[in-house]
Each structure stands twice: as structure tokens, then as C-alpha cells.
């Protein structure tokens, strides 16, 4: 039985490179139409919040997808885990905080999770995705497709280990 994957992406499509997350989800959604053998649930929002803990709680694998203003490479993949941080106290949570809320409200360990960050540089209202970020998006999509093609924690860990 294939793993239940939650692909949770964030971003505002009208704020420049903040659209990288939604754009990746859009590509994944189109690709998944031809892959009925996979069990992937796509969740898109402007930003992460506490209710997303309920979205991820029952998954086998969780992949957070987002623009990353701190990335030094076109994209990066890392394993993450639940953690308390100060994002709990804002209008947007970190992926780690979402997992932590999932643990607290369900009383169970959250599912294994990874973060695919795509390097973004410009986030102005009304701006399109920058030329550089479009290149990053293409590379990140190749990575995402590879991950979805093999929804297995050990395989994802192996790819994350390369970063």
C-alpha cells in the first residue's frame, strides 16, 4: 500500500517569489493526475497555522514546500522534526511548530517530515516570480517529482542527506 503523503505548500501568488510554493503545488497537482497509484494530498495556504497540524497528523509522510529567503542554493531539502519555537506566537508557524502542535493536540508523534525550500529573492506585492527563481523552481520540481515517485522515508532521507 502506498504511503499517504501530505504536500503542504505556502505562499502568496501575487508577491513575487513567494509564489514558488503555490507554483510547485500546481505542477505537482497536474503531474499527479497521471499517477493515480500515488496517495498525495495537496494543501495550499498563504502561511502555516495551527489548523495545519490537523492536516498533517494522519499522514505517513509530510513535505513542506515553501520559498526560502535564506537558501544559498537553488533549492534545499532537509529532514525536520517537531520543535517549539517562537513562531507559535505569530500569525504564521514554522514547519517545526506545526509538527509540534500536531503532537500536542493529538497526543501522538507527528509523522516524519521534510522541508523543500526554493530560493526566493524578491517578494514585492504585484511582482511576478523573478527570472532567477524560475530557474530554481525548475530544479526544485525535478527534485519534488523524484520524491513523490518514491514515497518512502528512507528514500527521502537519502536525498536529504545530500544537502
Amino acid at each position, binding site marked *: 500500500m502506498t504511503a499517504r503523503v501530505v504536500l503542504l505548500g505556502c505562499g502568496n501568488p501575487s508577491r513575487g517569489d513567494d509564489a514558488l510554493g503555490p507554483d510547485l503545488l500546481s505542477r505537482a497537482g497536474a503531474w499527479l493526475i497521471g499517477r493515480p497509484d500515488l496517495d498525495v494530498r495537496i494543501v495550499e495556504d498563504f502561511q502555516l497555522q495551527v489548523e495545519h497540524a490537523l492536516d498533517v497528523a494522519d499522514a505517513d509522510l509530510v513535505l513542506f514546500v515553501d520559498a526560502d529567503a535564506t537558501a544559498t542554493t537553488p533549492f534545499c531539502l532537509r529532514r525536520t522534526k517537531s520543535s517549539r519555537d517562537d513562531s507559535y506566537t505569530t*500569525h504564521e508557524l514554522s514547519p517545526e511548530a506545526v509538527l509540534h*502542535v500536531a503532537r500536542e493536540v493529538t497526543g501522538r508523534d507527528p509523522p516524519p517530515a521534510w522541508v523543500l525550500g526554493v530560493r526566493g529573492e524578491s517578494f514585492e*506585492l504585484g511582482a511576478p516570480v523573478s527570472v532567477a527563481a524560475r530557474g530554481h523552481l525548475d530544479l526544485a520540481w525535478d527534485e519534488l517529482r523524484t520524491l513523490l515517485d518514491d514515497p518512502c522515508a528512507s528514500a527521502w532521507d537519502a536525498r536529504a542527506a545530500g544537502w
Partner: protein
Amino acid sequence: MTHLLETAAHPRALRRVAIEPLTRVEGHGKVTLLLDEQNRVHQARLHIVEFRGFEKFIQGRPYWEVPVLVQRLCGICPVSHHLAAGKAVDMLVGARTLTPTAEKVRRLMHQGQMLQSHALHFFHLASPDLLFGFDSEPARRNIVGVIAEHPELALQGVKLRKYGQEVIKAIAGKRIHGTACIPGGMNKALSEAERDVLRRDIGQMVAWSQGAVALCRRVLDASPHAPIFGVFPSNFMSLIRADGALDFYDGGLRAKDAQGNLIFDHVDYTHYNRHIHEEVKSWSYMKFPFIISLGDADGWYRVGPLARMNTADFLDTPLAEEARRAFRAAANDGMQHATLAYHWARLIEMLHAAEGIERLLDDPDITGTDLVAKGERALEGVGVIEAPRGTLFHHYKVDENDVVVRANLIVSTTNNNQAMNEAVRTVAASYLDGQKLTEGLLNHIEVAVRAFDPCLSCATHALGRMPLQVELVDAAGQVIDRMVKGADGVFAEGRDAP
């Protein structure tokens, strides 16, 4: 209501404390305090560097795109912008009166937004301050502390928020980027199946909301801070229904002064700019609205839950009305001016929204089929609603090609701009004079700002963009101390802090 502390007589001779940005507040905020040689607060300013470019974002677009487009102005309250824009666009197509189904479905969507927004704010942003006191350990103040000591509250908060979003999703088709409002009405009503799903849990949401009101009351009653923290007189403004009831979605504008006297009442909101003017100040990107008849020095006002509790004659749902009466009784039936009373008012509104949802789900119009009204085309439209954070204005002018040529938005946080500055000044003058800058003292200021639940970013949120920076700058402009709080919550101190 003068600005005694806003502009110091000799600012160059003052020390400067900058806090940037505020934690637990969306986006990028910075507080600057100018201290004199005796560390007395002479000047306080809340700088907000967002809210740029909204109008340009809208101009040049065909009007029918606008209700969907404006959802992208803000990741926190896209539904509020969607509804305000929808009302403005209704005017453009001559549909000042919607069909019963369209209006009730919009109201339902709005109540869902109110419920989810207020639930998040209370349970996950502000409640830690109230439950544990804002002098307590930072780790206990945040939601982790709440969950550890009140696990049932955390789960209720998450589920209340989720329920509000399910209401929105049922109407708009999805959580975000939905197309609920169309010119003159709604894209769809609720199906009977969708209504029945929402009916299943609404009783629980009402009960949890009622419990939250009671909890907030108990916490504030027990707090030594509540009666004295951030108390300052102000005017208040909100929409009001023709019979004086609170109305989140429609009505006329009512403003009261600090003593509760009417400044104006049942003003047609399409004429808002005859009564409200927006002042520009050189040190802030955000404008400062004021009531014209009172002038810029005395005409500023508060909006949002506290204002609505002070302006409304009654609430038309029984449990919330009972709570409102208790709220007003606590102020001897006068105007409630305490900053922390915002939280109590917000929870009463959450209960009112839950009751409102329950009532609308029992209304047969909610599953109706008559969704769109039409009328005579116009070239100008104004839409005003009471968003979770306060009164929200959208004003558009279009040309004969249906393209928006002018847009003016006054968002809720802008309406509260001067009031938030006043809160900072009041708290700083009370708690920071002559004291060393500490995290606990800074949090007093943040508590005051957070009470307004300001939405400062309308926002990008990409990973790694939420630092907190505190600088102490002497009269010569030199940084003499620095405090940096990273996205991981770790503090670094000293001039060489990253």
C-alpha cells in the same frame, strides 16, 4: 487626546530605543522610544513599514477581477478584503440590495472568518499573556505553555479555527483563492449536504465560545494589570445596524467620543470621506485617519472589537448579548477604555459569530438559488465591512472600459494607527521610565500592541524572515546596545550581536 509624547522638543538630545519587529504581531513593526537623560519617555512611535502599493496593485484591473485579487493583499484576513471589495463592486453593477440568499451566504462567510480569526488570536497569540501574566517566563507565555497547562484550550482553539475555515471553504470552494463574491451576488449558496455537515458541530462551537468568554472574564477579573494597563480615552467607530445592533457586514457608520456621546450616527458609508480624513506623517508609511469634525489632534479613534462593544446598543444573539451587558456593566455602563478589554470584547464577538452561524444554518435562504442582483452601472463603488480587526474601507473608481482607475483602501489596522501609538505611549510612560531595557519590559509594549491584533504584513512569509531586533542609540546616533532575537527565539545581546 493630544499627542504630548509623539514629538519631543529636542529629539537629537534624546536616547533612542528601537524594537524591531514586534514578536507575535504579523509582519514588520518597529517601536522607537526616545528617552531623555533621565530615561523618561519623551517620544514614542510605532513604525509600520507595510501597507504600500495596495492601490497600485488594484488599479488597471477590470473590476470583476478585484474581489478575487484583493484576497492576496493579506494572508491573515483574505475573506475580509474579498467581502469589502465585493460590496464595492456591487455598487459598480448597481446592486445595492442583494438577494436574500446572496446576502445571507456572505454573512455566513463573514461569521466564519470572524470565528476563525478571533479564535486564533485569543488562544494562540494573546491568551498566554492573560493566562500567565506578561512578566512570566517567555517560554510559559507562548502557546507551548498554554498547551502544557490547559491542553483542552489549545485543542478547542485549533478546532474553532478549523471550523471557521470549513465554513469559508464550503462557500468559496476552497480555503484560499476562492470565488465566492461576484458582482451583484454570490457564485454559489450552500448545498443541503454542506449545511448539514456544518450543523453537526456548530453547537459545540457555541459552547466552546461561551466557555472562552467566561474564561477571559475570570482571567481579567483576577489580573492586577487589566484595570490599569494601557488605559487611555479615545473616540470609537464602527458600522451599526439601523436599529442600533452590532452588524459585521453592513449598516451606517457610528462614532462616539470618550464619554459615549455620538459624534455621528447612521452615516451612509459611501460618504465616508466627508467624515474621515487620512493624515500623512513623515515618519510612517501608514496613514493616520481622523474624524474631520474633531480635527487631526483629537479626531483619532479606535476600531475593532472594543470599539464595537462600545458603539453597539445591543447584539442580536442571546448569549453574546448577555456577555455584552456584563462587559458594559464592568465599566458602569460607560465606555470601556482598557486596552486589555479588547480581548474580552473579541471573545464576545467570537461567541456572537458562532451564534450567528448557528442561526444562518437554520435559515432556508442559505440554500437558495437566487444568487445575483442587477441594476444600473455606476463608475464608483464603496464597500465597508467590520473585519475582525475593525472597519475596512474599499473604494474604487472605474472608467467606461470597466478598468479600475482609482482605488483607496483604509484597512482596519490603519484605522487603529494613532490608537496603537497612543497605547505604546501610555504603556511606555507607565512602565519604562527610568528602567533598564529588559525583555519583560519590552513585552509590556508588545502586549499593548497585540491587544489590537494588528495585521501588519499582508505578507510574505518565506522561511527565515522573522527576526526581532532591539537597538539602543545614544544622542549622537551611536548604537550603544543591541538585542537580537532570531527566528529560533534565541536572544543575542551586545553591540556585536548579529
